[in-house]
């Protein structure tokens, strides 16, 4: 925790409960904010688009980490919950004509409810058994979404109109730019609220269930309520990510929410660091950035080593897997851990112990 930083003395509990204590921490915050504020002017729309998808993924990953990393309930149902968020918001906005912000809010609530429902097996199942049972929720949700003609009018997908907020339609030319502010705003909100949860009794009870459910029940934590609540809260964030996907990509199709996506999100939080909000964000960035960066690299190679050109796509796919493997060999506990170590290293340098 932050209080290990040398030379910080607290005179009240309130001061100790703050998230940032040292000037270095405050400086970092200022830098991050400044970075976020200037970024859209520094990159082209393509990269800004990637940043936007990272932002959405980060919201979803934060949600998943609440469930997996903080409550210890491994879930492979992420894709299904994203789908619930996306379809709910899209349907409410397109069919019922609800204003998009309201539709998204309803999507969050809907996904939370569905999440809690599919969390029911967690009351009986533990660990990897639960993980695989959540695949069932994934498959069932996707099944419903695909086969229920009413949802998509039998087309299997829904078109969503370009975002209009209070009568103002996001212009085509500054599409990514406008979305950047929406997505970053919501992502920051997601990160801040999630961090807040884990400063309070509610969040602690989640972590207690993760670390030791029997002991948790012995101190008065209602396991049923807490597990279902964790599913609901987590799914709420995931629903937001799903709703954003719907309106940002202007189309909803189940093909976007398959088990592969669930695995990809799991990859994000593991690579980022389980049980870390910041880690979820790092992980989302890592997993979403890796393929386009590899593609850039491949482009560079294509012209230089034409012989390889034919194999490049496969090489890219292999490199994606390889980077993940190597990364975890280097630091099995994730990016968040690397970041902390780097901070410690700087802080304690030149004294090692």
């Amino acid at each position, binding site marked *: 925790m932050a209080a290990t930083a040398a030379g910080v003395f607290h005179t009240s509990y309130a001061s100790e409960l703050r998230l940032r204590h040292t000037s270095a921490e405050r400086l970092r915050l200022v830098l991050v904010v400044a970075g976020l504020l200037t970024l859209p002017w520094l990159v082209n729309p393509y990269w800004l688009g990637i940043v936007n998808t990272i932002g959405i993924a980060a919201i979803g990953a934060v949600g998943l980490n609440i469930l997996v990393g903080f409550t210890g309930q*491994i879930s492979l149902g992420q894709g299904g919950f994203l789908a619930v968020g996306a379809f709910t918001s899209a349907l409410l906005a397109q069919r019922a004509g609800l204003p998009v912000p309201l539709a998204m809010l309803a999507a969050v609530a809907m996904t939370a409810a569905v999440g809690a429902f599919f969390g029911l*097996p967690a009351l*009986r*199942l*533990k*660990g*990897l*058994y639960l*993980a*695989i*049972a959540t*695949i*069932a929720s994934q*498959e*069932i949700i996707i*099944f419903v979404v*695909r*086969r229920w003609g009413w949802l998509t009018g039998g087309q299997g997908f829904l078109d969503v109109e370009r975002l209009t907020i209070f009568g103002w339609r996001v212009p085509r030319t500054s599409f990514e730019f406008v979305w950047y502010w929406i997505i970053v705003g919501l992502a920051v909100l997601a990160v801040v609220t999630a961090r807040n949860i884990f400063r309070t009794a509610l969040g602690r009870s989640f972590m207690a269930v993760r670390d030791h459910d*029997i*002991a948790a029940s012995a101190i008065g934590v209602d396991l049923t309520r807490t597990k279902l609540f964790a599913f609901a809260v987590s799914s709420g964030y995931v629903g937001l990510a799903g709703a954003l996907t719907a309106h940002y990509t202007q189309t909803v199709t189940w093909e976007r929410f398959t*088990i592969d996506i669930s*695995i990809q999100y*799991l*990859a994000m939080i*593991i*690579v980022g660091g*389980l049980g870390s909000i910041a880690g979820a964000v790092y992980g989302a960035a890592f997993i979403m950035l890796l393929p386009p960066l590899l593609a850039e690299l491949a482009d560079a190679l294509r012209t230089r080593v034409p012989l390889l050109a034919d*194999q490049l*796509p*496969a*090489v*890219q*796919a*292999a490199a*994606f*897997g*390889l*980077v*993940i*493997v190597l990364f*975890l*060999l280097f630091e*099995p*506990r994730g990016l968040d851990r690397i970041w902390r170590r780097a901070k410690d290293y700087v802080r304690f340098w030149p004294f090692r112990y």
Partner: protein
Amino acid sequence: MSQFVQLTVYGLANGAVLALAALGFVLIYKATSVINFAQGELLLVGAYLFYTAFVLLRLPLAVAVLVGVAAAVVLGVAIERVVLRPLVGEDPIAVIMVTIGLAAVLKAVVTMFFGTTPREMPKVLPAGTVTIAGATVPLDRLVAVAVAVVVLAAFTVFFRWSRHGIAMRAVADDQQAALVQGISVRRIFALAWAFAAVSALIAGILLADIAELSQNLGSFGLVVFPVVILGGLDSVPGTIIGGAVIGLVSQYAEGVSAGASQVVPYVVLVLILLLRPYGLFGQPRIERV
């Protein structure tokens, strides 16, 4: 009636292959408490290894199978050496993630060497059909079931009674404690992966023969999840029952409504899990305070 028999035979044949693929999962889980997301890709690689030996190198069938097995063992051991050894003692979830990465690598490597077009392979299993209770039943499916049963029985015996089988279960229980018994956790991991690769190879050969040899074989990995969970993540005999149940259920569902067969196994799975949280034969976690 004949329709029922027909579906049953095909269901069992699918179940047999599923059980073989599931076996690899179970072996790895038993020894390392890790879910191997690369199991489907092991199967894919196994099938292509056999293809290389049998078709490209034109080795006689028996030799080709042996070469395939040897190559699978090498692959399993190599995976352990290069990617799993440094992770001994780490949180299993990190290892699970590594297998996800590994899956991407293995699949891409197959694409690099063999391209994306399905390959033709001469039939290895007998091609004829027999008639059982009015149903036309292809011989290859029956042989596939037999092969699977033999292999699975062998592994069951190994785990129950051999020293290495017990050591493997010990490692799964408590790695540190196993280490101080002089059990080389690495060796056990290597063994588990080698076995998993071999069972995947066998499943791959069968699959390539009864269906086709293409990169899509990799997708079999995910299909196997309900099977392992149903039988119990750590139960070798459980894979047989799990495979049979899931194979049959999805086949029957397919015979009634084509779309439903994708979701029915999962529904069955959840229902069974609610009654038996550790699957049909899985070992409950001992939780005493």
